[in-house]
């Protein structure tokens, strides 16, 4: 039994690391969405709310994880506690966790626990994708959000639909589509404005100049300032 508890404690420790890594990911997304919202007049509030929901779910999972870890550690240091009747409900929680561990990667969902394979993939995912420190252009921002979306896409594949995080991850992924679309549009606006400037020498007649000036104004009107990466108001 001690050996089983030790395996469970190890799995819980790994889950803890993975959950913290998910919270870090959420923090990065929060900071990026905050910058985007400042440039796009709070157009991405839904995405922010979904990210807040994700962070809250991760925090709940982390709390559950710490409770389970406490029980496992306590049992390892004082095995005689297992014989006490008051400890039985706590033991049944660990028994359920053990069953999920035996189920495999997509086993029954236990709050605060991630299968070691899933946890390991999450940790690797965070180490694999490092977000850029400096973002000097829309192209940089596009790469940044594409990296984030790829991470969320890979996370979706790790959580079965029954898991409480699953739907939130899908929603965030869909929400990021809209952000990427807006960044893409800004890049197109910049490209087209550049093209109009380059072709301005071809425009010799005033009526053409007026026609293209109108479109230049339309484009300039839709151009938003490049976001400046901040830490978000929570960090201030």
């Amino acid at each position, binding site marked *: 039994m001690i050996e089983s508890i030790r395996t469970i404690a190890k799995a819980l420790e790994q889950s803890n690391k993975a959950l913290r890594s998910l919270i870090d990911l959420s923090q990065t997304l929060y900071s990026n969405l905050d910058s985007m919202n400042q440039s796009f007049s709070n157009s991405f509030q839904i995405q922010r709310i979904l990210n807040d929901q994700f962070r809250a779910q991760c925090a709940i999972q982390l709390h559950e994880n710490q409770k389970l870890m406490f029980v496992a550690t306590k049992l390892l240091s004082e095995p005689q506690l297992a014989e006490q009747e008051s400890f039985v409900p706590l033991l049944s929680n660990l028994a359920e966790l053990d069953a999920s561990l035996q189920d495999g990667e997509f086993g029954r969902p236990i709050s605060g626990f991630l299968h070691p394979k899933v946890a390991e993939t999450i940790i690797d995912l965070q180490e694999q994708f490092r977000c850029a420190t400096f973002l000097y252009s829309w192209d940089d921002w596009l790469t940044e959000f594409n990296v984030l979306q790829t991470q969320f896409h890979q996370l979706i594949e790790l959580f079965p639909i029954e898991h409480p995080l699953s739907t939130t991850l899908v929603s965030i992924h869909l929400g990021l589509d809209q952000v990427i679309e807006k960044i893409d549009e800004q890049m197109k606006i910049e*490209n087209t404005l550049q093209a109009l400037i380059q072709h301005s020498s071809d425009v010799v007649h005033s009526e053409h100049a007026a026609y293209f000036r109108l479109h230049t104004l339309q484009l300039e009107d839709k151009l938003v300032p490049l976001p400046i990466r901040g830490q978000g108001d929570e960090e201030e």
Partner: protein
Amino acid sequence: MDIEDIQQEIVLAKQYHQSTLDQLDLIESNHLSGQVQSLQHSITYNILRPIERAEILIEIITTTGAENIPGFLLEEWYLELRRIQTLLEGYEHD
């Protein structure tokens, strides 16, 4: 939208209208000069200018790449090209 088709139509229409303008230049008649000038003005401003605009639009679209132009503007430009295209039809038979 087939840009190459429009480009071919533009060449034909420009040749046709330029030739008409050249022929109008050759008319030496004092009592017709007002009508000739009016016709020249009409051809230049109502046909040749929109054709020039179509040429500039096509140049911008092809050099920038349609996929790099915002959707709302590309739609507007395509609409403008379609409108100008109606001025170009039928010259291939003349």
